[in-house]
């Protein structure tokens, strides 16, 4: 009977590895390998005609494009940050209300929040373009009642792009916030009241600190995709506010400059990783999985 326990313990020792195998293979094939392919392209010279790439170890490409497109990086940074802040300000009260006052209808309210986002991203943005166009319903009404000057327009401005980003990424902010607020133990709140905290103090000293990981997760989940977004700028933006996502798209599709596009993508990824690293550093890596 002696082999059985040994075999069992060996199997038990292997179990974690076997269980993580599918995820590991997935990560390797669909993340690590493509990542290294992308990084290697930054050092290659590619033919725009055939698409074939030859390794030329051109280390200069990355600093070159970062320098060349610094302004577009800055625009993306500012737009994504603004959109994220707007989303946090809008969705915090919504998430708070649903978590604390939603009662039995919590799920219904959450679905109500998400229903518009069942429609394709592109279509939603195109509809905004339609609504906000100079002869569209909104501006026609405002101009007709002389609420705005006749040459006022929204499309083609940075405001339109930020608004589009804020609209499109709202659920990415609202849901992590909701999760953070929902999981706050009500007894902790009651304890605060028992200890003579008024509502304001209970909010600032209890609820807000307990929501910080959620706020940070919401920030990352909104900021990172918004930073690389090109759809909103393409559809709603004008000439003076190109975002880095558009540049990457053009480098790949129009210019066939794969090394340049890959370099910018690498920088974009680095910025995102920096955010996640900061999160892990400040709030501990254990809390990430609760929100992602």
């Amino acid at each position, binding site marked *: 009977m002696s082999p059985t326990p040994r075999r069992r313990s060996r199997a038990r020792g292997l179990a974690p590895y076997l269980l993580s195998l599918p995820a590991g293979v997935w990560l390797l094939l669909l993340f690590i390998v493509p990542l290294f392919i992308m990084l290697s392209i930054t050092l290659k010279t590619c033919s725009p005609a055939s*698409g074939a790439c*030859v390794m030329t170890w051109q280390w200069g490409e990355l600093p070159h494009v970062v320098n060349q497109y610094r302004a*577009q990086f800055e625009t993306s940074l500012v737009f994504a940050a603004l959109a994220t802040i707007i989303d946090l300000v809008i969705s915090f009260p919504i998430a708070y209300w649903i978590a604390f006052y939603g009662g039995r209808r919590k799920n219904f309210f959450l679905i109500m929040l998400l229903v518009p986002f069942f429609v394709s991203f592109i279509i939603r943005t195109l509809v905004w373009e339609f609504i906000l*166009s100079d002869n569209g319903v909104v501006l026609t009404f405002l101009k007709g009642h002389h609420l705005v000057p006749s040459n006022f*327009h929204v499309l083609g401005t940075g405001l339109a792009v930020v608004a589009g980003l804020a609209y499109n990424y709202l659920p990415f902010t609202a849901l992590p916030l909701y999760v953070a607020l929902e999981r706050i133990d009500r007894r902790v709140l009651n304890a605060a009241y028992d200890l003579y905290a008024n509502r304001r103090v209970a909010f600032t000293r209890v609820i807000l600190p307990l929501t910080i990981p959620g706020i940070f997760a919401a920030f990352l989940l909104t900021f990172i995709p918004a930073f690389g977004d090109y759809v909103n700028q393409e559809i709603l933006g004008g*000439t003076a*506010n190109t975002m880095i996502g558009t*540049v990457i798209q053009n480098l*790949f599709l*129009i210019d066939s400059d794969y090394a340049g596009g890959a370099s910018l993508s690498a920088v974009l990824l680095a910025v995102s990783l920096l955010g996640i690293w900061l999160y892990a550093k400040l709030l501990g890596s254990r809390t990430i999985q609760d929100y992602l």
Partner: protein
Amino acid sequence: MTNEMSNQTGAQGIDPALWRGMTQRRFSRRQALGATGAGLMALLLAGEGESAAATSAKLGSAGWWKDQKLHHVVNFANWPYYIDVLAGKHPSLEHLTATTGIKVNYYEVIQDNASFYQKIRPSLAAGQYTGYDIVVMTNNNPQLGYLIELGWLIPLDHSLMPNYEKFAGPLIKNPPWDPGNKYTMAWQSGWTAVGYNNKVVKDPGTSIDILFDKKYAGRVGMLSDPFELGSIGLLAVGVEPAKSTEADWAKAAKKLQQQKSDGIVAAYYDQSYIEHLKNGDISVSMCYSGDIFQADLNSKYKDLTLLLPSEGAMLWTDNMCIPKYSQNPLDAMTTMDYFYSPQTQSVVEYYNDYICPVPAARQELLHPTGWNKAALASLKPEIGLPTSYTADSLDVFPSPERIHQSRTYYNFTSQEEITAWTNLFLPIIQGA
């Protein structure tokens, strides 16, 4: 099928055996052509391994064409809104199927040259069928040149192009981008010119300067295609694009950059500019001639007017070609030549109003002589205008003056030139 085809096209009953005979006689000449057209190919292929020349000598030769058989199906990739439509069907394609048995799977999948090229390139590079037997590529972008230079197009069999030889117009026959029509046959042409809203713009003048007029600041649309943008910039600084130098390109780029920093440009648009012109977001725009014509057909947008500037307008041509590894090349050849029948072209043109590659289609619009009579009549309620409107349009059958105003694009001779061009004009489009 050949008899039916030739009856309706006018070329009197050519026996398939005779076609084969003709192709065989041409064999040696064809091979010689294949050997000479290598110029830029060597340049682009340098260091890239695959030698296209070696395989293409056989591909598309008379002997190769002789071995091809009709499969009665063809997969046709084209741009949207570019063929006659009636109740969700295409009368011209239906007639082709009725007379030849070739079923056309017509896909409106090409939105722009660059991205479509990126879609078919992996298949071509891997030696596989792209899924299309006919693709339509424009001469104003480098991709058509890439396809030719990499040996990724099947040389056409001129013995299977009786309509083309007979009816192709001088504007598109033997074009500079494909001497001798070795690989391509034009689908339609058009101008890249200026379109404006005549309700807002009261004194358009005749110059391209209207695009640079501060009066319309924030209301001017420009195209986001760097090759179109650069060519218009060259016209604006008084240079013939076809004869321009890199110094001229820099001058044009400066002019366009100024236009942008002066706040004149509303945005750099793809095909969507026409919607913005229609709904009033912009008053003046770089435009494709056929879009303005089609918008005008709709009485709601009668205010749009096409202006061919005195400095010239860019004449582009969309070209049908057969990508390598096509599974139905003979069906593709037959289909392509079918569109050079004046009767077919009259039906296509009545709907789409670009520059017609077949001048004889004008008479067919005015006095249809065959199947097109019923087709044109059935399209009429849809279009709402007499066929003479299309026939007499200078946008479709250009006058000598309009041909004189047409300019050709710069013919790039190396990848370095293409890169130099995009490095000048792409930053304008995507500048911060």
